[in-house]
């Protein structure tokens, strides 16, 4: 998965590890150098004391005045050693050296060296050596010290450092995770809003988001507005077209009603205007449907259904039909208000047209929308039902009286990927229409 949070975690984690390793190594290395330089300066000091303490006997042989030398050099394997190599005669070694060797290299006067060597009993030694000229002899003085204790201390420090850095590394990573999570909160908010947008709960996204995603949100909002306006505009234009076409059609129809018009012409006029009207109406209604995923208004049953029923009661004012419409839904989601009103209007109109006294409708939504409409009219014969349920069958061609309205209904059902079932209402006895819309797909 391409997760920004993941990338931030990995990136920061790696750079922290690198940084801490570098710092750790630097500290360790500097400590080592510091220790070495301290030891070397001590060795130098001891070396110079040795030089001061050495004397020549009558034969020119080198001797040391013992008491001027620190007692640590007399203790066997004490970790402090020296070796004097005179120009002639035998080399003088500290008693602590026992019978182990140091370096036997002779240095010319003024030459110096510092080196790590393995000493007696596996002691790691730091050796300092320098060449001198005393009297008329070249003398090489070597002093060495055991580093093992110091090195252990250094190692301990390094371990402590490692433990501390690891602890802080995890602490920082943990804090960073919190920070990242917090700074991603607006994005989760946004994702939530997009879900709401899909359902039609809101029509715009909040633009109070981090700078980085704001251009995206603003653009989405702009597109939403453009879409909504476009839908509005095309619907409006179609409404105007309908208006413009219906005026003349209406006049033609009125002309056909006129008593002065000859009977034959009347019939022709009726026929053609009716066809024209049906065609215009059907195509216009089709074109004005919004369909799935549209940026339209949402449907609030408590607000819309009573008004819709009033409209129907006015139309069927001389029939006294009882409309019993019920829904437990607060809001119907994912369906355009105009489409749903067109759907319900046509279905209820059709039902009321055939009903004797009762029309019932039920609307439920889980994920999908279920609509059932029943009437207590004479219903549709079994054969007609059988024909109607055939695939690809056009309702408006086959069911007299259930004309245009049902064709539009079918159109809407198709737009919402739904199904339509017709049968006899078990309770009311008339036609029952059951719709199942899948607006989430």
């Amino acid at each position: 998965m391409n997760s920004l949070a993941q990338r931030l975690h990995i990136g920061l984690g790696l750079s922290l590890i690198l940084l801490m390793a570098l710092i750790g190594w630097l500290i360790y290395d500097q400590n080592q150098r510091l220790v070495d330089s301290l030891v070397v300066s001590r060795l130098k000091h001891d070396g110079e004391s040795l030089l001061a303490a050495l004397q020549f006997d009558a034969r020119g042989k080198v001797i040391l005045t013992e008491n001027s030398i620190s007692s640590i050099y007399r203790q066997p394997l004490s970790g402090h050693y020296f070796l004097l190599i005179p120009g002639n005669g035998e080399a003088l070694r500290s008693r602590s050296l026992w019978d182990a060797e140091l370096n036997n290299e002779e240095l010319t006067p003024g030459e110096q060296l510092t080196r790590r060597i393995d000493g007696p009993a596996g002691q790691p030694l730091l050796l300092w050596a320098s060449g001198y000229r005393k009297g008329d002899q070249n003398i090489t003085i070597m002093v060495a010290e055991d580093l093992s204790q110091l090195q252990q201390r250094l190692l301990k420090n390094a371990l402590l450092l490692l433990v501390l850095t690891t602890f802080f590394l995890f602490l920082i990573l943990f804090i960073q995770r919190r920070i990242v999570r917090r700074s991603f909160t607006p994005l989760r908010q946004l994702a939530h809003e997009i879900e709401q947008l899909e359902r039609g709960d809101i029509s715009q996204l909040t633009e109070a988001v981090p700078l980085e995603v704001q251009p995206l949100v603003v653009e989405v909002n702009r597109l939403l507005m453009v879409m909504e306006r476009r839908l509005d505009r095309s619907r409006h234009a179609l409404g105007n077209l309908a208006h413009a076409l219906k005026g003349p059609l209406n006049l033609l129809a009125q002309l056909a009603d006129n008593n002065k018009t000859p009977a034959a012409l009347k019939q022709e006029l009726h026929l053609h205007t009716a066809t024209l009207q049906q065609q215009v109406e059907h195509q216009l209604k089709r074109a004005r449907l919004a369909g799935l995923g549209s940026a339209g208004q949402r449907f609030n049953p408590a607000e819309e259904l009573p008004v819709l029923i009033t409209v129907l009661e006015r139309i069927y004012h001389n029939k006294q039909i009882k409309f019993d419409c019920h829904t437990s839904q607060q809001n119907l989601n994912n369906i355009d208000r105009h489409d749903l009103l067109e759907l319900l209007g046509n279905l209820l109109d059709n039902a009321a047209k055939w009903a004797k006294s009762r029309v019932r409708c039920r609307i439920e939504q889980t994920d999908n929308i279920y609509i059932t409409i029943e009437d207590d009219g004479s219903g549709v014969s079994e054969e007609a039902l059988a024909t109607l349920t055939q695939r690809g069958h056009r309702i408006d061609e086959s069911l007299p009286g259930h004309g245009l309205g049902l064709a539009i209904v079918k159109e809407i059902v198709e737009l919402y990927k739904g199904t339509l079932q017709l049968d006899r209402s078990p309770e009311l006895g008339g036609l029952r229409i059951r719709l199942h819309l899948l607006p989430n797909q």
Partner: protein
Amino acid sequence: MRLLLIEDDPVLGPRLRQTLRNAGYAVDLVDNGIDGQFQGEEESYDAVILDLGLPGKPGLEVLQNWRKLGNPLPVIILTARDAWHERVDGLKAGADDYLGKPFHQEELLARLSALLRRAQERSNPQLSVNGLSLDEERQRVMLTDGKTVELTGTEFRLLRYMMVNSGKLLSKSRLTEHVYEGDADRDSNVIEAYIKRLRQKIGKSLIKTRRGQGYIFGTNAP
């Protein structure tokens, strides 16, 4: 009954006015939204037939403005915009009924009389008071003795208005307002003459005169 017809179509408007006149209504025709709104506010009408696509001011806005001012005029919207959401929005804007074009004249007349009945809170489609019943379709009246009397247009409008408002004191000017169209010659003496003729046709006792105030229809009048 006096109606306000707001319709901008130059052919449909006058034709509809004639139809309504033939059905026994006094009709004022206005062809734009601005005059329509003004007329609806200033004059007393029994109902309004309102087109939506009007020049000057859209019909829905006219209606909303009336309702905002608390004008309870019964309104039928008559329009080619007959999508269901438009009908619902029309009623939400304050219309009492909504009729899509094209329409049949009989349908409009039936809806209109249903609307007027609702406005008068009258459930019986047959208008009858004190044994007198009015045949609105044929514009004649059946007397208590079963005799049928034909009425002229003005007589019919006058009698219908008085029967609908039976028991109420009706001034001459109120009668004039609801019986004549806006541009008619409104001489209140003419009303007196028509009352006289009605009394000759339906009997004197049903219309009482309150001197200086007007007339009351019905025997149980105070």
